[in-house]
């Protein structure tokens, strides 16, 4: 069997691992500085501003093309979401009514195991 200290593959893997640690540590030090935070956030702020302007331009373009704007689509989505919520509530109420009337709600509820399990040490069961 080849000794790991002389195995070129193992040496390569070790070198890659050391390089990873070294680079991560160096980068972490560099990223801990206030200068890094300032530069990163300046770039991020410019990108966010550009994204906002692009969004506004696109909205104007859609209006001129007689297509629904983002705001209108969002409004529709909000109404859909409200309808989904109401359906959820109705389903939940129906389930509660069915449960109180003793009606089985499908195979799942009929087959639920009893809630009688004890931890192994109490019941003498092996872990």
């Amino acid at each position, binding site marked *: *069997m*080849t*000794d790991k*200290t*002389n*195995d070129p*593959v193992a040496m390569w*893997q070790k070198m*890659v*691992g050391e*390089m*990873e640690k070294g*680079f*991560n540590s160096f*980068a*972490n030090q560099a*990223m*801990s*500085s*206030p200068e*890094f*935070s*300032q530069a*990163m*956030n*300046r770039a*991020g*702020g410019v990108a*966010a*501003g550009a*994204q*906002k302007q692009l969004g506004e331009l696109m909205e104007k373009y859609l209006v001129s093309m007689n297509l629904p704007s*983002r705001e209108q689509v*969002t409004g529709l*989505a*909000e109404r859909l*979401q409200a309808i*989904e*919520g109401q359906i*959820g509530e109705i389903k*939940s109420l129906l*389930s*509660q009514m069915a*449960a109180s009337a003793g009606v089985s709600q499908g195979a*799942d509820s009929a087959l*639920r*195991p*009893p*809630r*009688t*399990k*004890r*931890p*192994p*040490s*109490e019941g003498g069961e092996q*872990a």
Partner: protein
Amino acid sequence: MNAAPGLDFASIPERIQSEVQRAIQRSIKGVEYFSTSGPSLGSTPKDVLHSRGTMSLYHYRPMSDEIYRVPVLIVMATTNRGYILDLVPGQSFIEFLLKRGYDVYMLDWSAPRPEEKSLRMEDYVLDFIPDCVRRVQADSGEQDVSVIGYCFGGVLSLLYGAIHKDGPMKNLICFTTPIDFREMKLFSNFSDRRYFDVDHLVDSVGNVPPEMILSSFEMLRPASRTVSQIQLWENIWNDEFVKSYRMFDRWATDTLPLAGEYFRAITKDLMWDNKLFNDTMSVGGRPAKLDNIKVPILHAVAEHDHIVPYEAAKHLIAKIGSADKEEVMLKGGHVSLVAGANAVKRLWPKLDSWLGKRST
């Protein structure tokens, strides 16, 4: 010239043959890698109990003849998908819990829609979690509920528990949950209030894009992605390695956007003012002091966690008001603590032995 000590010349032909075989295998498996999809994740049978916008509540179908009285609700981190806890059979935390006799529910998140940019911390702590707890109570027929929170899901669970001090939470388990945000050094520097204009960002983009969240995670270890790709190529002949790589890589890159107002609150209240640690946190005007939590609590932290360093998590147990409280530090990183081969041997059995006796 003397041979280097330990160098076994007799093994060299065998080693060359093995490397040539691996090189051939790499070429074959490399083609396979790009022409196939990864393993199917999150496939433990479940029912969607409720779904509302970004929030989904699942109930997993029992896998045991007898279950513990107290159901378990898992609260997932809002930045990532819940299938990290349900990878593949044999490496699924959910499956493990089900087989050990727990009745398992999960509060999982999908990407918030553009119109959900106005979701606030109040919506998560005072609406989504209590709503799910009520539904778990109704579905299980039990008043008590144990809560497990992973990473920021742990922070949300702590806030929920600190505000709803009269129940119905029976036990709380936090995995790698930060409370001292000053100690998340790099995140703290990235969001330095002198340079980071969170209002400008949120007002510009609405929901914070997943690329930004992913980049901030990757910047913590900038070389690691490249190195993991090198390791993938070296080990591409090894089906188990490739399967594991694909599962974790898919999950890690499947980051979720964050609702804008929620992100604004996290930045201002937690990153800037460190309110949870300073006992000044409130949600919707309701104080959320950690010593309000009196239920049994287990906090599992990872020895090599680069996302939530131990310094950011270590004060949690001291600040909790419970008499029954325990911190356990296990080998591993932020993700390998909860998922993968090591979690199967370390965290999961520990959790089972702790929670089982508190679930009757």
